[in-house]
């Protein structure tokens, strides 16, 4: 084996500690974590090796490490760690570092890494939609039945903005995924010749793991987290379906001359699905927030990345439901401002997605598929 020339990066250690890996130096390499982890592979198991790499500031090894995505952060390793080193938190922090550095521009990574930059993140969409509001109704509450399209006409303000945002996010992810593949390859993991194709693995992963949350379920020590994540996941899926139907119905309808109009009637099955999605979202949020608040800080500490995502989803959910309820209750003075906030938070959720914890839905999926392709799997699989 080639000899590793070491030049520890103390700055990297400190950044990792700030990103949620505060306790990483406490590890004394007993390997309890790797032994109890049901997802950890037999060869070079995690998270033990990540712990010493982190202690020694071996940035190159860590940024190329596929294993940080194989961890589902159930927290069992942190729970059983005899030294309070919280390996689960350290892997989460490494993922946070990846959210920060994988996607460009880097300035967004920096803004998403600390509460200090929240005013900028909030300010961009807030200003954008305030300007739009100024153009449409001169920042006044329109009269008559509440239709949010009066202030924020979908065709000219919402759809183009989010369309552009979506394209931006997709391009960002495309380049980030390229980086991710390169990093996996540079750490020596290359699929064998007889390996299944990446797309086949990706489909299998979605079918066998993501839809069922099967890996999550293996982490039996944290059932609340599994249930919460499952509810949130299906809440989002429901809302994605609703949004897609509405978008297709609207723009597709234009072509055939039979448009789907919003707001939909409460009797419309699509509206049912939308409301069910909102309820699932809130239920999932309650479970996960409670779980995070109840965690013993000696065992695991939630990072800013955790709270940012949770906070934004809470805000999206509450303003979304608030808009609907206030609209139905016919309180225009409140309904329009709340809808405005809803748009701001949705922007904060989607436009910054590649740099937030939510980016795991892309990175982890890609990493899981790649891991399947190279045959890297946990002892229990």
């Amino acid at each position, binding site marked *: *084996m080639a*000899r*590793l*020339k*070491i*030049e*520890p990066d*103390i700055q990297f*250690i*400190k950044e990792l*500690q700030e990103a949620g890996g505060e306790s990483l*130096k*406490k590890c*004394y*390499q007993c390997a309890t974590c790797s032994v109890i982890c049901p997802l950890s592979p037999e060869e*070079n198991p995690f998270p033990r*090796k990540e712990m*010493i*790499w982190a*202690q*020694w*500031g*071996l940035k190159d090894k860590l940024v190329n490490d596929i294993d940080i995505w194989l961890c589902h952060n159930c927290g069992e390793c942190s729970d059983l760690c005899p*030294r309070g080193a919280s390996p689960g938190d350290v892997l989460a922090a490494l993922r946070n570092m990846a959210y920060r550095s994988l996607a460009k521009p880097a300035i967004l990574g920096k803004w998403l890494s600390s509460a200090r930059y929240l005013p900028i993140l909030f300010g961009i969409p807030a200003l954008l939609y305030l300007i739009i509001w100024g153009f449409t109704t001169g920042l006044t509450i329109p009269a008559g039945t509440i239709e949010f399209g009066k202030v924020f006409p979908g065709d000219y303000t919402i759809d183009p903005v989010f369309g552009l945002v979506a394209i931006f996010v997709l391009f960002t992810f495309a380049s980030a995924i390229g980086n991710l593949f390169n990093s996996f390859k540079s750490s020596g993991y290359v699929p064998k010749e007889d390996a299944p194709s990446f797309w086949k693995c990706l489909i299998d992963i979605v079918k066998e793991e993501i839809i069922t949350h099967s890996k999550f379920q293996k982490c039996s020590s944290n059932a609340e987290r599994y249930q919460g994540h499952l509810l949130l996941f299906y809440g989002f899926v429901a809302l994605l379906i609703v949004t897609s139907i509405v978008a297709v119905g609207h723009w597709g309808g234009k072509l055939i001359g039979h448009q789907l109009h919003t707001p939909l009637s409460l009797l419309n099955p699509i509206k049912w699905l939308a409301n069910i999605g909102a309820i699932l979202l809130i239920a999932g949020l309650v479970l996960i927030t409670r779980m995070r608040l109840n965690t013993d800080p000696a065992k695991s500490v939630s990072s800013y990345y955790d709270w940012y995502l949770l906070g934004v989803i809470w805000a999206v959910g509450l303003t979304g439901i608030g808009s609907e309820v206030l609209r139905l209750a016919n309180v225009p003075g409140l309904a329009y401002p709340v809808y405005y906030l809803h748009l701001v938070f949705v922007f904060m959720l989607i436009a910054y997605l590649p740099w937030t914890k939510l980016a795991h839905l892309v990175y982890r999926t890609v990493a899981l598929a790649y891991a399947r392709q190279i045959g890297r799997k946990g002892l229990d699989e």
Partner: protein
Amino acid sequence: MADRKIGVYICTGCDIGNKVDIEKVKEYIDDECSPAIIKELPFLCGQAGLEEIKKDIENEGINGVCIAGCSPRVNWDVFDFGPEVVVERANIRELAVWSYKEPDLPPYEETELEADPLTMMVQDYIKMAVAKLEKIEVPEPEIPEIAKTILVVGGGFTGLNASLDAAKAGYDVVLVEKEAELGGFAAKMYKRTPSTYPFTATEENDIAQLISAVQDNDKIKVLTSAQIEKISGAPGTYEVKVKVGEEEQNLKIGAIILATGWKPYDASKLSDLGYGKIKNVVTNVEFEALAKEGIKRPSDGAAVKSVAFIQCAGQRDPEHLPYCSSICCLVSLKQANYVRELSEDAKAYIFYKDMRTTGIFENYYKSAQDDPGIFLTKAEIEEIVEDGDQVIVRVKDTLLGEDLEVKVDMVVLATGMVPTTLEEAKLEFELKQQASGEEEEKKEEEEGGEDPRLAKLREISCLKLDYRQGPTFPDLMLFDGFADSNYICFPYETRRTGIYAAGCVRQPMGLVAAKEDATGAALKAIQCIESANRGVAVHPRSGDMSYPKFNFTRCTQCKRCTEECPFGALDDDEKGTPKPNPTRCRRCGTCMGACPERVISFDNYSITMINDMITSIQVPEDEEEGGYRFLVLCCENDAYPALDMAALRGKKWSAYVRFVPVRCLGSVNTQWIAEAMSKGIDGVLLLGCKYGDDYQCHFMKGSELCNRRMDNISETLAKLQVEAERVKQVEVAIDDYDKIPEIIDQFVEEIEGFGPNPFKGF
């Protein structure tokens, strides 16, 4: 003993009365020993029982009490009737009733025997106790004029603390330091490892306060630039000659604390780690000095940004020091903190075999670990090479799963501690090896004058003892040269009563442990003085007033006692006549066991006393009617308590054995074996402590010497056509109680295979 008036009191409690024919016992003892009083009482240890005994002492003038009941190891305080009344215990509860196993014999009524086997056993034990009582004298020690000053040798951290502790307890102290300044290695340190809760932070070196506390103390006389010239005498009466500068002083000393400390291991032997070849490779001791002045790279004086610490450098290695110095891991963690003080991005690497930060010091390890600039891994060093003004360290078998290479400004070797007694220990070992191996050569040397190495030994030894057995402690090479004796059981004890070792000369240790050691040794020194002035033994027979008496008219000056005493208690004159030093003695009786002329005895423990006890055993003429008889001489320290424990746990063993406790197997005189064999006893079992390099003998050499004597005995037995196997020594520890019945029964079975002792009935 002319006017010993004996009362025998038989307890019938604890199942004794139910199992034993007490009437037959009383009748037998009355016939055989005719004590003044013989009584049975239901509970001797109860109020009524004790009152009865006290009444007899007062009204009848009883001055020898035989308590036939429980073991002497219990209720010893209850059966204490003052210094004028001698008490002897017949252990008929544990050793007879509780452990009795019915033998396979015809009913005694059908034989010539007069009692059942258990009753016979009880008769034996009581008769043995009475036989001993008849011979016991009350020891009257001669108490010399006692000096109460404590001498502390070595003015380092341990010596300073010991002096202060002894002074605080009210004793005068003389502190002798060979250097011009006090403080030793502790004064050379930049900072110290933690000493207070939570044991996480490096502390400022506060040795100056300790030094001034000692200097300001009226009870402590500090002699610096001073050397011990000679120590003669014994605890309480030491005469110490000290050379202070050019002037010689004579001190009268009660007890001595040896706190001469340690030296760093000779790093010139570590050239494979770059020492001596690479300027920027230094030892931990050198690095400490550097830190005190401000760390600069030795080769060019440049600022230091990274340092690699190599743990166990020349330690835990048969080529160098075989042991762990226990403190170097903490020292390197401390010194890594020094490196981190240099700059925000300074790096300290620690390559270890195992991180050994015992006990609460784990906290210090944890806090160092938390520093992002301290990097730790287990590793084996492959090579250390120079690279300009930097040093490259290559290691393998790391926790990172890969071979590593780091480039650093400096390498610090965590070298170990060597005791200041090492050189004398080596020389003593060499001389002893030669003495045992080459008797003839030794004689030649004696003719041609003294071996020059002996003069050298006298010169290099820390204490320069004027003892018959030599100027230093014996057998320190068992402890790699440290002045240790028997770890766990007797810390601070040395093989020279009155001299207590503390700190790093005793064991490698850090400051916290050394402070505790200093207190411990000071207490031992005080105990020694306060025992010497009362005429009692210090340890382990604390409070024992007896002392070996010599019948010089029969002494043949064979020197065996002076040579064999494990504690060098006996000096001798030109002719070889032993010169006793009562306060050096530990009362083990090894001299008594050694003496071929049987001229040594104690007032309450002698050859004739034990002979009389052996004679008290009834040996049935026909073993088919009454069974065999075996004598078990068992060590009071471990074997006897193990027997008690076995009995308490309901273990049973052969009814043919009779136990006689001895102070130490070293006190067993071959005469007793001869007595037993000639009496027709079928075998003698000796139960004592483990001997050899990892001995557990409470008197260090007793069980080993006994074993050597038994080798001679078996030769004699063979000449008499008696099977050598009839005498056997077995090593037992106090926790071997579960093995004791098996040991006894196996021996019994083995001897039964030989048939009865051919001398039976003569």
